[in-house]
């Protein structure tokens, strides 16, 4: 236990004026969010604060902030007993303005999109670009008049590979049918989810 904070890192916050407290907690929360998101954290990110706020054990404080942010982040969007969380923050002796900052994270509409980013990296590639062209064969060595359209597709994937292939009309309809089916399934899945979320 550090000599700097006999009453724990949270109570030693009170030694600083309100705006400084808010300032450091906000910075630590941002750092926590970045950590959860898996963004690179610069070396000595915490040491910097430890110099500035010498009365606080910044490392202990950060550990607490990180845990609270993690818990808040895990709460389902639009589903939370806000009051209960407020109570718990009060119990943890955080000054009111800091507690309000935590509540802001909870209510941040960006929280939902944040989840989609986390663990977004998938084993499989993503489609980064799609180019296409429709060819009509006029004539060939085996048939004097063909006049059959076919589709040429170039897919550029997130792993950098370029895939070029051709589709006959039959295969194109098959592709169109499959994509439409999955899209419909996905949307009905989301609708069911909204219905559940409203309960």
């Amino acid at each position, binding site marked *: 236990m550090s000599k700097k904070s006999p009453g724990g890192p949270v109570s030693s916050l009170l030694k600083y004026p309100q705006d400084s407290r808010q300032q450091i907690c906000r910075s630590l929360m941002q750092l926590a969010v970045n950590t959860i998101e898996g963004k690179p954290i610069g070396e000595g990110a915490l040491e910097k604060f430890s110099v500035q706020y010498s009365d606080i054990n910044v490392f202990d404080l950060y550990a607490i902030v990180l845990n609270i942010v993690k818990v808040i982040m895990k709460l389902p969007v639009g589903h939370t007993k806000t009051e209960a969380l407020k109570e718990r923050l009060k119990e943890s002796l955080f000054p009111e303005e800091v507690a309000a900052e935590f509540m802001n994270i909870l209510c941040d509409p960006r929280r939902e999109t944040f989840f989609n980013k986390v663990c977004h990296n998938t084993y499989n590639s*993503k489609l980064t670009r799609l180019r296409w062209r429709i060819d009509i064969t006029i004539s*060939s060595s085996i048939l004097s008049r063909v006049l059959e359209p076919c*589709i040429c597709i170039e897919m550029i994937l997130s792993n950098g590979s370029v895939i070029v292939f051709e589709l006959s009309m039959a295969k*194109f309809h098959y592709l169109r049918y*499959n994509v439409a089916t999955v899209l419909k399934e996905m949307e009905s899945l989301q609708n069911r*989810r909204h219905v559940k979320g409203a309960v």
Partner: protein
Amino acid sequence: MSWITATPRLQRAVEIINNLDSSKFPLLLNRIAQALQAGSGGGKVFTDEEEEKLQASLNLDHDSLKLLLESTSYIIEQAAYHMTKPAVFHHSLLETLKMNKDKAQTFVNTWSNTAKGIVEQLRKKSLFPAQLEDIKWSLRLQTSSSTHGRQAVPKAVFQFGIKENDSVNNVTVDFNHNELFEFYKKIEKIQAQLDNLK
């Protein structure tokens, strides 16, 4: 321009055809036409073993059988290339190639029955090496993760089987809802352009 020319080689083949057993020829012709309809043109219609049996059954030597099979395919392929009408086809077999009446009639019957399928098959033939062969997909729902207790993120995985040089290369691509919707819009755009062609 006629759809077929009586070359010496073809004339020799017609001589063989004229001498064939009238009950066996329709079977042989049908088998060749079926193979063309199934798109195996270019490859061999009969296996080596079958060819040996044919030699015995039709009483032909190896070279004559080869000439017979190649020429029969050639006549049908030429008819297909020019999309020859059965009446014109019949007339040329009799007048240009000097084929016997019964053999010419057999040819016309087979051609009338299989022309549509053969031409359709040839129309679909493409020289493009990579062809989309198969599509598989699965729809997944991410229900929780290391950062979030309860969530519901649908994810689609598509596997495109692309056939290239007789081997299939599977390309697997992930889509979330937005990405899939964008993909769908592009496909619809292609469809709209195809509709404009009509």
